[in-house]
C-alpha cells in the first residue's frame, strides 16, 4: 500500500480539488456512459 501522492505526486493527484466533488462525479459518470449503457442514477449509486 502507498498514498497515491507518492506514486504520481501531490500536484497531479489533487489536480481536481479546484472543482466541486459533484462536478468530478458528473465527469466520471459521463465518461462511463460513453462506453457502457447505464442510467445516471444507478451509476451514481454504484460510485458512492
Amino acid at each position, binding site marked *: 500500500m502507498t*498514498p*497515491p501522492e*507518492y*506514486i504520481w505526486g501531490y500536484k497531479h493527484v489533487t489536480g481536481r480539488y479546484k472543482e466541486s466533488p459533484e462536478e468530478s462525479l458528473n465527469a466520471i459518470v459521463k465518461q462511463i456512459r460513453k462506453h457502457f449503457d*447505464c442510467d445516471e442514477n444507478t*451509476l451514481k449509486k*454504484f460510485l458512492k
Partner: protein
Amino acid sequence: MEVIDGQWYMGGLDWDDEGCIHSSDELLSVIDRVGFIPLFENVIPGFSVENMTCLSYWWSGDADVDPWEWRGVLARTGKVAYGKFFGNKTGFISKKWFPYFVNYRRSGYDFDALYDDGKAGYREKLLMDLFIPSGVDIWDVKVSALPSLGLSSELYTHEMKEKAGFGKGGEKNFEGVLTKLQMQTYLTVKDFKPRQNKKGEEYGWE
C-alpha cells in the same frame, strides 16, 4: 461474479471473441481509454475485467494470460491505480482519471485536514501515520527522507497491520479501515507478494 446456491459463477468471453482482452498490455490500453474498470461483474452490464476476459485463464498463475495476475503487473507499472475503489470492491483507475475520483471521494480534504475536522477516526489515522510524518503536510513530504524518520513510502498489508497495532489484543477491523482508506483514495495498492507461513511456504496473497 455471481453466487448461486453457495457456488461462485463467473461471466466472461471466449478467448476468440472479438472483445476479449488477452494480456495485461491490452487491459492497460482499455483502462487508459475508458478511465476505470472494476475487476468483477457489477450492476453495470459489461463494466468489469471479468466481463472482458476469458474465464479459462483466471487463477491459472500464468501472468501472460491470467487476469488475476495482471493486478500486480499493472499496479507495479505505476501507470494505473489498483485498489478497492468500487463499492468496497477492487478495480483499476487510470492516472488521468484518478484525480477526479480523489476530488469526488475526498471532497477536497487531504487526510490530515479530514482528521482535524473530525471526519476520520483514530484507526484510520493509525494507518496513515505509517506513511506521513507527524506534523508534515503530505505535499511537503520528501519521500526519500521517510526511512530516516522510521517511515516507509510503501508497506505490505501485514506490515501495516503489525506496525499500527491491529490484530490480536490490539485494534480491531483492520480490513474495514483499510478498505475505507482505499475507497476515499488515501491509499492504493503498489504491489502484491505471496504470503508465507512460518515454514516459508507460500499461501494466498497480500
